[in-house]
């Protein structure tokens, strides 16, 4: 890698300033405010506030509802990441072949990324709503009791599929680019040595794709943690019961619906710590196994 060394400190600082200012305004300041708020007990109107130390945290962690949401988040994020990445990899491998109209397929596969989460959710709602959805009604007429408004597992399945569908396109672009940067010579050499396509995929393509896959794993998990609010809000609203309430959705319910700011802030601080830890673990352990 080529390194540029600046003389003095004024210019580098100047060049860094815009990014630092953005980080300070959009991350450090709100995060600091959340941490401070998480230590307070306040009435909704903000007229009396009292320092309560870590009580908000101990209460949140003792709540069975919070643990339920944590469990939902685990299932949801893992499933979304696996499903979105698996599907995208499969599609990318297929689209990488020299077939007629490959560009059209590629463009079409990228489209869903341009759909806003709430719009995507409404789309899925019109497909799977038990009484007005096309697929939902067909399922019920076929004798399958489909009602995600009452069946927690079906609701979870639906938001996983809807959230993963949105992310497939993004993963697809990266996988396709990764595939195209694998040297043809290596693949051809393996083919000449008698390696079948499946073997070539597992021993050559996949290891060489691992930096891309690792990057996407981080991005997908962060997406599933934070960016899926719109899908959940529009499709299930966290229900039925609390079957699809994830940690980020619970932060919203607690803070915006119930105006319980102390508890909501404590939950968002816990969430922040979790994601920082998760990313650190990924970089520390998984990255070692990645071939660059």
């Amino acid at each position, binding site marked *: 890698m080529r390194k540029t060394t600046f003389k003095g400190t004024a210019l580098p600082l100047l060049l860094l300033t815009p990014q630092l200012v953005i980080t300070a305004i959009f991350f450090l300041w709100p995060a600091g405010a959340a941490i401070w708020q998480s230590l307070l*007990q*306040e*009435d*909704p*109107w*903000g*007229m*009396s506030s*009292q320092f309560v130390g870590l009580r908000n945290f101990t209460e949140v962690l003792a709540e069975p*509802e919070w643990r339920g949401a944590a469990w939902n988040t685990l299932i949801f994020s893992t499933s979304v990441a696996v499903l979105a990445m698996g599907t995208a990899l499969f599609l990318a491998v297929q689209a990488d072949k020299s077939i007629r109209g490959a560009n059209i397929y590629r463009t079409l596969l990228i489209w869903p990324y341009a759909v806003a989460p709430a719009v995507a959710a409404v789309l899925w709602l019109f497909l799977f709503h038990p*009484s*007005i959805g096309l697929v939902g009604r067909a399922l019920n007429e076929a004798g399958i009791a489909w009602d995600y*408004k*009452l*069946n*927690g597992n079906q609701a979870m399945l639906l938001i996983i599929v809807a959230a993963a569908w949105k992310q497939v396109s993004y993963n697809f672009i990266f996988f396709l680019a990764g595939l195209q940067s694998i040297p043809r010579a290596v693949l051809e050499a393996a083919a000449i040595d008698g390696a079948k396509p499946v073997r070539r995929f597992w021993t050559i393509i996949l290891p060489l794709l691992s930096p891309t896959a690792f990057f996407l794993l981080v991005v997908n998990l962060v997406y599933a943690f934070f960016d899926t609010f719109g899908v959940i809000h529009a499709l299930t*609203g966290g*229900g*039925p*019961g*609390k079957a699809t309430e994830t940690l980020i959705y619970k932060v919203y*319910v607690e803070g*915006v*619906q*119930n*105006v*319980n700011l102390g*508890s909501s802030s404590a939950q968002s601080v816990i969430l922040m710590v979790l994601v920082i830890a998760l990313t650190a673990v990924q970089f520390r352990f998984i990255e070692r196994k990645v071939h660059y």
Partner: protein
Amino acid sequence: MRRRFLAQASLAAAAIAATRPARAQAPVEIQFWHGLAQPLGGQLEEIVAAFNASQSGVKVVPSFRGSYPETMVAAIAAFRANAAPHVVQMFEVGTGTMMAAGRAVKPVHELLSESGVSIDFNDYLPAVRGYYQASDGRQMSMPFNSSTATMFYNKDHFKRAGLDPEMPPKTWEELAEAIKKLKAAGIASPMTTSWPAWVQVEQVSAIHNIPLASLGNGFDGLGATMQVNNPLMVRHMNNLIAWQKDGLFKYGGRDNAADALFPAGEVSLTMASSSLRARLLRESRFAWGTAMLPYYSDVAGAPRNSIIGGASFWALNRGPSGGRNAAEWKGVAEFYRYLSQPEIDAKWHMDTGYVPVRRASYQVAKSQGFYEKNPGTEVAIEQLLRGGDTTPNTRGIRLGGYVEIRNIIQEEMEKSFQGQQNGQQAMEAVTQRANTVLRNFERQNRG
């Protein structure tokens, strides 16, 4: 050059001086946030426009802020940022939170006495005014759009099942028979409910004169505890669960999600806000009727009045440090006085399906022959007036954090309908979780 400049300067000064008295005469602006989508929002804004046209001292500026919960949160956030609206429309569920808001709120009785404006609250329906009064009877917010829950039934389905279309079930026992017959006649799911918590828990408690929470449903203090784990509620939940299992009852989702099922002809019978009427008139392609909510015939003292839903108007300070002057409060009081006129209220009632909040408005609608021309529209009012004066169990609900508690009720009902728990367990879970919310609210608002 300089002379010309001086001349211009003095002209400008004169112009400023000239605008000053004009500015003093400019109307006082009252910011008014509401949570009614179209078409109701438009009808409300027409009333506001009529008020503005009726006088020149006050100008009310209406602004739609999303659903009721969104409007509530927006008003709270604005208050914290010292930019609250003068008047905000707040749904009845938020009443407990507003009552505990202390200095944030300007109570109606204070507003009126300071401004020298009078409104005859004694003429208001007890179930309406009581919901928005402090426990000592002082009026805290201005009642406006009130509804209650009623039953709507499909007369064509009733005929098909051999039931008398002019005799809707009065009791839950009769209703159980009716939905079995409807099912036998080929209706896949005969019954549903909108607003599961409001209709099946709050209304059922009130109609049977049973407390939902202690301390008069919270009217007498923040220390109230939830009491829905009583035999009647458990029995009612177990009935709903059993009917759902047998395909007699269909759970249609939270809040008003089930509204769509009845006009689509999917169910024969629904319990929903009386304001659903407008939609039924527009969408239903069959004959339908309106009836009062059913009651259990073996409960002594039942049926009583149902409780209201809908919203009232709250006057707010600008922010935590106050910041409104007497002219602004006077403007709000004038606006309230305008809204309280029976003719205005009666028109709103007849146009929308909300109930009249005053007896005088009820008379206005009666004298115009509205109820003969529109059969069924009287049911909601009769039900609100049923059983005479309200009791501590039928006044309404005054619990802090009630938005959250309603969701808890809906969540636990959903778990029951999934077969995860019975009625007893559901009501125990609601009680326990709601009490956590209530204690938390009490702690936040103690100081």
